[in-house]
């Protein structure tokens, strides 16, 4: 009940959060009810090639005779799946690495944070690209590789949280009561420090969606799955003759990514103590 009131306050406070949540709910509903919304089988190429939008094929068809509208509906599932699983992997690794490093401190922390700094500096996209090229571009690989390369940001955030939390009284007293370090980490440090990581992980969802699109655009997408990035890729050669093939899936990417950005920014706004005080 208290959470609901809190949420209502946030809802009132940030228009970005409001708009973002509405947009994102729409995408999620589309993904959930995809089979009901699709007018054609997105995996069957039965229509004439490159039909203009309108008529039977709402948003036209691509070069191979796929229905753009149905494929965009289907692609929402791909994007959300890639986004969430990759972000989840990166979130879990980030929280564990950052939490342990910040909580233990000392030498472990120095080494871990140096590694994190180095990984933060590396151009992630190229690493992902090279790995996908070598290991194969199945959906699973893509998700795992994006997740495995994007955790350092989360680790850095969690580390800072852990460092400040371990000085707090409730952690100190748990230590004094003889609770084990592992249990302190999981019962006090992580639950209390995870919020900024959650916001960052949400940003990671958007990042992974864009990353998948970029990989698809250079031909490293999973050929067995419909994704927005691959649709843009498929249409790039026909941009001048059949613009709808690339245009609409691109708009779908923007809509989804923008909804997530707005939500994250809204969350950052309402969670910032400065703004909260002004409202109080």
């Amino acid at each position, binding site marked *: 009940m208290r959470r609901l009131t809190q949420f209502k306050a946030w809802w009132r406070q940030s228009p970005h959060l409001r708009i973002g949540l509405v947009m994102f709910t729409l995408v999620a509903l589309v993904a959930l009810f995809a089979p009901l919304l699709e007018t054609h089988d997105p995996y069957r190429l039965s229509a004439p090639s490159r039909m203009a939008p309108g008529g039977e094929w709402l948003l036209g068809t691509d070069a191979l005779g796929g229905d753009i509208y149905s494929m965009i509906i289907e692609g929402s599932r791909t994007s959300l799946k890639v986004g969430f699983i990759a972000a989840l992997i990166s979130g879990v690794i980030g929280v564990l690495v950052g939490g342990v490093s910040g909580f233990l401190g000392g030498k472990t922390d120095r080494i871990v944070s140096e590694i994190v700094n180095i990984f933060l500096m590396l151009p992630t996209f*190229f690493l992902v690209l090279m790995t996908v*090229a070598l*290991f194969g571009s199945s959906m699973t690989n893509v998700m795992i590789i994006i997740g495995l390369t994007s955790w350092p940001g989360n680790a850095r955030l969690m580390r800072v949280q852990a460092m400040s939390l371990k000085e707090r009284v409730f952690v100190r007293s748990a230590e004094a009561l003889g609770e084990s370090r592992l249990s302190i980490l999981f019962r006090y440090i992580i639950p209390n420090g995870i919020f900024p990581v959650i916001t960052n992980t949400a940003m990671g969802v958007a990042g992974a969606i864009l990353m998948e699109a970029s990989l698809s655009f*250079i031909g490293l997408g999973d050929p067995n799955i419909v994704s927005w990035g691959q649709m843009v890729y498929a*249409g790039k050669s026909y*941009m001048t003759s059949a613009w709808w093939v690339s245009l609409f899936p691109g708009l779908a*990417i*923007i809509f989804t990514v*923008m909804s997530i950005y707005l939500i994250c920014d809204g969350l950052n706004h309402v969670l910032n103590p400065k703004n909260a005080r002004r409202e109080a």
Partner: protein
Amino acid sequence: MKRYVARRLLTGLLTVVVVMVLNFVIIHAAPGDPVRIMAGMEHPSEAQMEELRVRFGLDKPLWQQLFIYMGQVARGDLGTSYTYNTPVLSLIADTLGPSALLALTSCVLSFLIGTLLGLFTARHQGSWIDSTLSYVSYFFDSMPPFWLGLVSILVFASTLHLLPTSGMVNLRAQNTGWALGVDIATHLILPCGTMTLIQIPGYLRLTRSSVSQVMQEDYITTFRATGMSEKQIFRKYVLKNAILPTITVFGISLAYVVTGAALVEIVFAWPGIGRLMLNAINRRDYPLLMGIYLMLSVSVAVVTLAVDLLYAWIDPRIRLK
């Protein structure tokens, strides 16, 4: 300051080492025989395999192979691309000029435009222009750069017939001197415009929030109390304090813009590193791909280091530590 420089140098060096190790590990962990991966074909001839075995010391233990590889890289030997049959380093060197031209131009333009827009919105907070720009910037932030490139081709080239959409020069015209410069500039407009539009939102929002943060600082209150005019406070004190974070971001983006521009280069067939990368991927030319990754990482490390040092020089709080 000396310690700071030393530390940054060390991190930069470590980064390069980490990239080399990563390259090595990925090749060896990937499914398939490293020899076949490096040769780029399923059935290389016995002579080719022998050459690669000697070159990478493949009969030696793994850790020795790592050192052999690192030694080669340290000497500037990134291997040979089998699709071009040319040393990887010289292939990359050929693309650096065009890539740097596109990257630097878009970086500087987006920094200037983004910061100016940010300053403008910071001074007009809550106005309709401010909120409109805020949503427009979210829109561009969410956009895949390559898609914006495609759309700009659709608008400017196929609909308006205004601008060239591919390559860096008009090969048929054989321009020289001024004409060549103009030719390159017209070819630059669309890819550079795309990259600039994509990068503007970051600067806009950063500058805006940085200015509003500085305006709330205690020293601004002090200056107001002294009777200094708002104009002077803004020009002399807010600006310098607020601009520091944007300069850092500018530096960081300088380091990464070549990576970010790769896909846009592909869209516009810009003869830069992005196109080289695409070819490497399409033909599974792994020595080339690894070479590109290594060179980009090194350039990121070098530029980041340079920016950090420059920043330390501008900001006395770091300089005197």
